[in-house]
């Protein structure tokens, strides 16, 4: 199942709608990296709200997307990781180290609007 990719201004938004096979994930990676160049995008959001599980392959592919997009000049943020999915990821020992994440699409857009800089909260 192909993941729809929306162009919104300087950003690309990929909204995953259903479970993805490994081939679907690789296809998403290729499509996003190609479109970053075609639309001269500065930011990429991958919305994984609909994913009910993320295994090592999915996490690795998301990490690859973020790193490849950065090499092409675009910042990536993964949004919508569900609580159960986060729990299983931690148990599996999977991390998205070096990849920006945000709670949802709104927070992801705000993150990119800030120029991809992490929000600093000082107490």
């Amino acid at each position, binding site marked *: 199942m192909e993941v729809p990719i929306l162009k919104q201004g300087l950003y690309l938004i990929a909204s995953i709608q259903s479970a993805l096979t490994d081939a679907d994930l690789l296809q998403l990676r290729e499509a996003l990296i190609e479109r970053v160049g075609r639309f001269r995008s500065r930011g990429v959001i991958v919305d994984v709200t609909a994913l009910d599980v993320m*295994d090592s392959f999915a996490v690795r592919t998301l990490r690859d997307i973020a790193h490849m997009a950065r090499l092409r000049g675009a910042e990536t943020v993964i949004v919508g990781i569900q*609580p159960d999915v986060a729990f299983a990821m931690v148990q599996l020992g999977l991390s998205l180290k070096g990849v920006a994440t945000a709670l949802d699409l709104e927070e992801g857009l705000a993150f990119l609007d800030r120029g991809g800089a992490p929000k600093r909260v000082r107490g």
Partner: protein
Amino acid sequence: MADEIRVAIASDKDVVQARQTGRELAARAGFSSGDQTVIAAAISEIARNVLMYARQGEILISVVMNGDHSGVMIVARDQGPGIPDIERALRDGYSTSGGLGLGLPGAKRLMDDFEIVSAVQQGTTVTMRKWRRSHG
């Protein structure tokens, strides 16, 4: 509780099918949604292992009982090259396929019981179980 579901593994679509089947069965067995996700993730890892190393095999998923405790049992069976050094394969970061090496050790961490029987050139069987937590 005799229902055992078999999912043949021969492509990446089957990996998705196996983990969805596992989640459904875990839901029917009364597992919390968090545990359903954990079970689905573990199935995904071992199903992908079957695909990566043996190219094909099968996953058997069933509901099991141990006294008052119910659980799910997942058996992944293939006739692939086998694992020469199981201890090493269960170590984090070890992979001979260019993967992350998280498949087997990750699945082991997610489940309560985890056993591997493997013979070189004959195949591998991974058996894992997760038990329902009783509430008080």
